[in-house]
């Protein structure tokens, strides 16, 4: 199974890349997706997460083919 993991704004600067392709076998939570993709980097405070463009908590689970995104607080408007 595989996921796309995307990073936006200051979080993209922090991880140093816009996205990852992540292959996995056992079910993962959103938090575990981050840990797999960034094993040496803890999740910055106030980070938001989305799965398939809907907001989710870090304990939410992901499915094969999902797009998981991490980004800082939004500042539009």
């Amino acid at each position, binding site marked *: 199974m595989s996921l796309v993991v995307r990073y936006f704004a200051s979080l993209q600067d922090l991880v140093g890349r816009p996205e990852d392709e992540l292959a996995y076998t056992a079910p993962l939570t959103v938090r575990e997706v981050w840990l797999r993709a960034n094993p040496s980097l803890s999740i910055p405070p106030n980070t938001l997460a989305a799965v398939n463009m809907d907001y989710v908590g870090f304990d939410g689970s992901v499915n094969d083919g999902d797009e998981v995104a991490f980004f800082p607080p*939004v500042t*539009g408007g």
Partner: protein
Amino acid sequence: MAVIISPAAFDPYQALQDHQHAHLAQLGSVGAAAIFIGTMRDFNDGATVKGMTLDYYPGMTEKQLGLCVQQAQQQWAIIDSLIVHRVGDILPLDPIVLVAVWSAHRGDAFDACRFIMETLKSTAPFWKRERLASDELRWVEHNSKGYGAV
């Protein structure tokens, strides 16, 4: 219920005029329009700002703006709405965001317009990066509550 995300500068009054002529010209049921326009200031958080880049998450941004409108429709009687939001490179005095709500009655228009604006600010994935007078780039870290004193 239009949502426009635009890398081009826009005149909010022209956008309103165009939308009104295209969608509301014959609508005798409209009694009220409540409109909000957010403009780029040349000063923020103690520093002079020369310009700004607005990043977004194509797909999710549109989806979340659609949800803002849907949630407003569930709470108030809305006849039509228009959201325009700039992305990309922006200069001071440029309009950034336009939210307009048309309704039969003013209470619905006012409440829904403000709700959409506040919900947009807290949920729509846009991120501002300011270019200061020193040419330093700085991510805006969070949105304010919207009052000068807070």
